[in-house]
């Protein structure tokens, strides 16, 4: 991460945040929902308030006057559900058909999906736990809650689960979103303060230090505030509580929308849309799950489900890292520094070369690329160029030259179906090229048994849990 570290150093020297991305690496919705949760200190995930909504001019505030009161807590969940769930469901109307199984079948997915923004990773943790504390609530029995409460729980659990998938844009947090695109001149620990992080980008180092004493972005409150302001208000049941919390949360609310505007100024990376497609897929199947009256997500994954999930997350992380590098030369630069990617110029090209040693002749053009950069690549390796991701370049030989190296490459794929390459598909002499061992290719993991065929000793089949 030398380039990002260097950007931090430059940011410190300049007194301003520095860019570490040239494109936006996340999907930014035209119609996002911002949610700022605030928790009661000491309690296990008791909401104190939330400011939320989908219009910058109209923040909605929900306050729990007595956070330790169970009924008020569920009234809060009910009210939040009444506002959030309609937004989440508003994308479940139009569908499109997607070919599956090599075009032998189609399935349908919604053409859009929701996007929720919270200030920081703590906000996501809060929602995950709040989802856990509400999704198993029963609508009958001794302590019934309205059906909106477990429904909210299932949604929050779904969103928090999606937020764990690298590259997903269903539930995002502003601190990480900014940190993906700008480096400040302070430490990552200090960047966790949203106001301070944003001040580095908007106004500079001095403003960032001052912002540290400004209002917090939740979900934790400042102990000082708890003791001086909150405690007397709660003790007296003072109706001013709502006004005080409104004032506390409003600056963060405004920052959130400014952040969205700022992110919007960056052009999206080429592969962002494809990742949003996967988000729409998971949204679509979750809506279907709910429509079928599906049970709440289990408290803990069984062993097989957990292993499968871990594998999915690892694959997603690897794919996301490569995609970001392919989309963004500034991210790719980190790989160039490490020698797994290098830039060069095409010095020779045989675009019509045909290999006829096999059963049938195949088009295998060769090009020579001269580079002055460090390369950690060996003959036989397969390289890709972000400009032509469908084309493979096999390293035939590497020769040291006074200026660096000459790399001889044999190309396959991405040139059309004929024995003559389609125009422009083979890099021409003089073209600048970036080549890397990184590959977008799908890496299938080890086969895991289907959950339904797993013995119960290994966590399957999933049992329906009811809450304790």
């Amino acid at each position, binding site marked *: 991460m030398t380039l990002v570290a*260097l*950007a931090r150093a430059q940011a410190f020297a300049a007194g301003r945040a520095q860019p570490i991305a040239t494109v936006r690496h996340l999907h930014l919705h035209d119609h996002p929902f911002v949610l700022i949760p605030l928790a009661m200190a000491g309690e296990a995930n008791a909401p104190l308030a939330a400011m939320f909504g989908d219009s910058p001019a109209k923040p909605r505030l929900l306050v729990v006057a007595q956070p330790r009161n169970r009924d008020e807590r569920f009234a809060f969940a009910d009210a939040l559900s009444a506002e959030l769930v309609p937004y989440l469901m508003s994308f479940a109307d139009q569908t499109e058909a997607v070919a599956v199984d090599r075009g032998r079948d189609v399935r349908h997915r919604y053409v859009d999906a929701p996007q929720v923004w919270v200030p920081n990773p703590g906000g996501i943790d809060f929602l995950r736990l709040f989802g856990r504390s509400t999704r198993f609530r029963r609508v009958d029995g001794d302590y019934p809650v309205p059906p909106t409460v477990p429904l909210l729980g299932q949604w929050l659990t779904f969103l928090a689960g999606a937020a764990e998938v690298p590259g997903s844009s269903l539930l995002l947090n502003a601190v990480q979103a900014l940190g993906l695109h700008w480096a400040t001149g302070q430490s990552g620990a200090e960047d966790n303060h949203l106001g301070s992080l944003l001040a580095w980008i908007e106004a500079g180092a001095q403003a960032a230090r001052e912002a540290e004493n400004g209002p917090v972005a939740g979900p934790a409150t400042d102990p*000082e505030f708890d003791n001086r302001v909150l405690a007397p208000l709660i003790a007296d049941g003072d109706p001013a509580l709502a006004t005080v919390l409104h004032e506390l949360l409003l600056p963060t609310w405004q920052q959130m929308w400014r952040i969205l505007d700022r992110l919007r100024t960056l052009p999206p990376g080429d592969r962002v849309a494809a990742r949003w497609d996967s988000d729409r897929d998971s949204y679509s199947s979750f809506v279907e799950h709910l429509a079928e009256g599906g049970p709440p997500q289990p408290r803990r994954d069984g062993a097989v489900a957990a292993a499968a999930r871990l594998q999915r997350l690892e694959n997603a992380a690897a794919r996301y890292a490569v995609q970001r590098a392919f989309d963004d030369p500034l991210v790719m630069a980190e790989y160039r520094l490490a020698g797994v990617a290098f830039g060069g110029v095409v010095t020779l090209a045989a675009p019509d070369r045909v290999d006829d040693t096999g059963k049938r002749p195949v088009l295998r053009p060769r090009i020579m690329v001269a580079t002055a950069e460090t390369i950690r690549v060996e003959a036989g390796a397969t390289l890709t160029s972000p400009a032509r991701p469908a084309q493979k370049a096999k390293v035939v030989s590497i020769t040291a030259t006074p200026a660096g190296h000459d790399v001889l490459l044999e190309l396959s794929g991405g040139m059309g179906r004929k024995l003559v390459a389609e125009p422009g598909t083979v890099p021409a002499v003089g073209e600048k090229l970036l080549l890397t061992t990184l590959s977008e290719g799908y890496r299938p993991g080890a086969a895991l048994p289907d959950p339904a065929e797993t013995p119960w000793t290994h966590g399957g089949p999933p049992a329906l849990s009811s809450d304790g």
Partner: protein
Amino acid sequence: MNRIAQLRGPEPAKRHNARTIAALTGNPGCSRRSVLDAAGVDKVALAARVGFPGSFGQSRFALARGNAFEAMLKADDCELLRSVLDVGVVGYQDLGADDDATLTARHARTRELLTSATSALVDHPLLTLSVAGQTVFLEPDLIAFQSEGRLRVVEIKSFAIVDGQADAAKVAGAAVQAAVYVLALRRLLGDDRVSHEVILVCPSNFSLTPEAVVVDVRKQLSTLKRQLSRLSSVTELIDSLPPAVSFDVALSPAALVESLASVSARYVPECLSTCEMSVFCRHEAAGTTASLGRSVRESLGGVETVAQALELATGTATPTPDQAEAAALLRTAARLREEALS
């Protein structure tokens, strides 16, 4: 009066508890902190006096919940605590409130009770530990459970365990504190009398129902022992300080800053959450690569200051032989960064 006490001035020494001793393991390389802690200086007051107050307060809501949870466990002769620990009928001895006047008597009573080897829950045992060559009393906040001649530390914590998982940072903090108690008990009774497995009792899921989990604190114990032995050598450092050095908070801020400057610090961003001097030290360390975080410092080739790293990156400074490799990397990084941004 010895030099350590002189350093602090007429203020009484800051009392230690498991939390403050656990904090000693936070930034073990920092001499400043070791000296201040060894001398029992009130760091909160000192930081405020030199103009860099930190916020290390605790929410009264959190305190109230902690107290309520503990009171619930201990009500009716510890009925609930006994059941969650599954200890059956054993005696319960409370060694009482925290009162400076009875320290020695309570310590004697603690020793007597714990050496007797009768099965019992012993609440608020008063323990001592040697910190920087001085015996300090630990404000007791634990229960020692004695059974078959072996002791276990029981710590009551108010953070929740949800589906078998708790906030990792909080568990880690509790484990270090428990290790402090284990160590103090071992120093009193001998190593093999005290288990390295401690029991945390926390609220389960979103209720106040208690749940007990066993935590192995061997790793924390060895870190703690190492740091305490380092701290004992701090007396030599203190003796070598110029006589004018003092952290008496009655002195002028300028004099205090000068005294602080005479003891070297090792600021890292982690200080912000672990040390009361952090805002002062952060200000002092501005411009160092370390203040950007350990990984940033390493990525910049371990170069000391930001300015130096940038000079090496732009080629305006000539690297020393052992900087050569880092400098080459930084130059390439700067070139690649510029190219990608243009």
